[in-house]
């Protein structure tokens, strides 16, 4: 019995490319470019200087505020530069460059501990100090999610193991190979939140993972496994909550506004490392896959490793690569060059061949309604797209363009190949800027 939501699409999943490749460990890079902005919120502030020696796990950037996390050295060695470096999102961001000394030595870590012996606050501290963020892609600091305002009672915590993005298999492999680690981390989160219910939500197309997890939770109390219908974007926070709990996150709100906190598989594994061993988040499982690489793999790589290293680990490019995407094909971002370093949220490196890529040409909307049926938020992408094209912002706002989660279902299903997501992104940006402009104008008037 699987559950689902209304809307969504059935893309080609292509999970078989990498799902049978067991997780391997990449050797530590010779040179790591560690970005200080690897999460949503204020970038960390650098606390190391040029020529300073650091050990693996040392803090190189401290959290700048509550919605921020520290950044740690992924390798031991010498800091050679603190400056602007290309960021996966395309701009230049401040980063700490560490030249490896080849020893890969851990710094002094906090003492090992059992989650049961720690209080909720202690667990939360360990999570924050370990620099853990949501590893599903958004990279929202985890401790913030674990600190709901007192007025909001969290009764359910969900483990988002849907992994609905096509191609990606990192979470699947992690659950198959280390189910105990995932479940243990999840239970630690449940303890922090004091949630009565805990549900692990897995899509039906991962039977091995379901089996492994079910075995691991057989002894755990209050944790159940829910199987989900295979559909994109089943792993979207809002869709997951709708499917499993039949609740809706209120417009403009967060899952905690309906009593839910959602965490990702990789996050839980990282939480387990942090809680039990005090290890900071310096590496993660990443799927390197796609028709454009010779030999798709799942690897554990350090943050700050260049993307090219990951591609080489998968046997290099196969033929001419068309596009390299960090993340999945539906929501991942294309990168310009492969020499940029990976960050905490890089759960996949996807290489597509030129033949696979859609053309950039598009036609007029023929109002076929496919996007309307596909939209998991039940918006009207057809009308929104038309208005966005001629920049009629008021109408767009009236159609709730700000509710769009940019899942890409509309653009995927559009027969006219319209770049709907891109149009909506621009519309949202414009509306936000306009509001800011209006605000400054208002404050000016008041003066």
């Amino acid at each position, binding site marked *: 019995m699987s559950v689902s939501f209304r809307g969504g699409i059935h893309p080609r999943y292509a999970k078989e490319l990498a799902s049978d490749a067991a997780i391997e460990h990449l050797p530590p890079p010779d040179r790591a470019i560690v970005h200080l902005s690897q999460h949503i919120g204020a970038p960390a502030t650098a606390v190391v200087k040029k020529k300073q020696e650091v050990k693996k796990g040392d803090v190189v950037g401290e959290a700048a505020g509550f919605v921020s996390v520290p950044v740690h050295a992924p390798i031991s060695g010498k800091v050679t530069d603190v*400056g*602007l470096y290309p960021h996966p*999102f*395309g*701009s*230049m961001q401040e980063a700490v460059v560490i030249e490896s000394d080849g020893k890969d030595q851990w710094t002094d870590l906090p003492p090992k501990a059992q989650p049961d012996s720690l209080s909720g606050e202690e667990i939360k501290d360990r999570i924050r100090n370990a620099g853990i963020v949501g590893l599903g892609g958004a990279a929202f600091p985890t401790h913030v999610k674990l600190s709901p305002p007192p007025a909001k009672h969290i009764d359910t915590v969900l483990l988002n193991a849907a992994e609905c993005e096509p191609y990606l298999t990192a979470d699947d492999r992690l659950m198959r190979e280390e189910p105990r680690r995932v479940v243990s981390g999840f239970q630690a989160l449940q303890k922090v939140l004091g949630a009565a219910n805990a549900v692990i939500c897995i899509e039906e197309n991962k039977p091995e993972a379901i089996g492994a997890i079910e075995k691991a939770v057989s002894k755990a109390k209050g944790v159940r496994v829910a199987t989900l219908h295979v559909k994109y974007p089943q792993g979207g926070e809002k869709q997951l909550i709708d499917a499993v709990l039949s609740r809706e996150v209120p417009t403009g709100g967060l899952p905690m506004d309906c009593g839910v906190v959602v965490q990702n598989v990789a996050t839980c594994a990282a939480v387990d490392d942090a809680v039990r061993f005090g290890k900071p988040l310096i590496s993660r499982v990443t799927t390197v896959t796609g028709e454009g690489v010779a030999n798709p793999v799942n690897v554990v790589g350090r943050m700050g490793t260049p993307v090219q290293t990951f591609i080489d680990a998968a046997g290099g490019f196969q033929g001419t690569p068309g596009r390299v995407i960090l993340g999945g094909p539906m929501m991942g*971002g*294309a*990168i*310009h*060059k492969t020499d940029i370093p990976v960050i905490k949220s890089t759960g996949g490196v996807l290489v597509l061949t030129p033949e696979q*890529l859609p*053309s*950039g040409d*598009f036609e007029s909307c023929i109002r076929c309604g496919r996007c309307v049926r596909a939209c998991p938020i039940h918006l009207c992408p057809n009308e929104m797209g038309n208005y966005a094209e001629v920049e009629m912002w008021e109408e767009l706002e009236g159609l709730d363009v700000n509710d769009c989660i940019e899942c890409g279902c509309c653009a995927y299903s559009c027969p006219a190949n319209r*770049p709907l997501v*891109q*149009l909506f*992104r*621009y519309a949202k*940006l414009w509306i936000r800027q306009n509001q800011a402009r209006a605000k400054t104008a208002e404050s000016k008037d008041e003066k």
Partner: protein
Amino acid sequence: MSLLVPILVLSGLGAAMGVGLAVAAKFLSVAEDPRVEALVDILPGANCGACGYPGCSGYAKGLVAGEDVTLCSPGGNATVKDIAAILGVEAVTVVEKVALVKCAGGRNVAPDRSLYVGPQTCRAAVLVGFGNKECRWGCIGLGDCAEVCEDDAVEFTADGLAYVVADACIACARCVKACPRDLIEMVPKDRKVHVLCSSHDPGKITKNVCQVGCIACKLCSRRDGKSFVIEDNNATVLYGEGSRDVPTAALICTPGAVWDANMYDQVTWLTDPEARVHLKEQQAEFKAAERAERAAKKKKAAEAKKAKEAAADKAEAEPAVGKPEKTEEAPDQEPEKGAE
């Protein structure tokens, strides 16, 4: 009689209606400022929005309500005068402006890092990984500015760089708002020396991504601090009071980010590689001349000193003679020096 009745009926009706209307006009009238109409007449009627109002009539209403009289840039000084006359306020002279794209980095000098696929507008392109140009500040060249320009004043070089034809520009400033990279600035029409770079990256990075980008070496601001200022790794020309067209600015800027319209017209400057070569030569000559001048000064000072001391040793003056010979080597040295 047969004629009288219709006449009576009609005039009776007319009179009744007239009285009704007169009464209504008394009780229902709404006052409107006659100046608004007069203002609408003298405004250019381009409805460009440069003043911040949706159209000329909007600005006219705003003016009556006490808005600044100098906001109409298409109209220029003449319109300001007219407005002032109607409103009975003192006329202010405004500086006539023109839009300027502050980037000289076409693909020939500032390459792309990848191939962008998608809607061919700048605003859409920058959403994909901050644009596919290596320089994250430079002109993308997909023409959002040209799209909003109703006077076709924006043109493009073969290497995808937008520039504004000053003669065609009416200074409506629509392009300023349209550029997602904020590259366009309204500058005084009579100014000739501009910095065509908006990069705020450190010189080290800028140099890697663009051959003509400002590296914030401060040579210009050191020469004239009132006309140039280095802000956030970028040289900015000050167009306000007390500033001037520094005639030597183009000759001292090592990467060639300063454009002097007295030396090269816009199209030549942006498209002709010869112009750059020529500039390098000019710069070398200028540098040599300056050096010679400095040396001469030094020599003079030294001579004066010496004269004072009335010493006999004159061998020291020798190097001054040797310096002009270095002129030909100078171009090679230029970039090296600038990089430091």
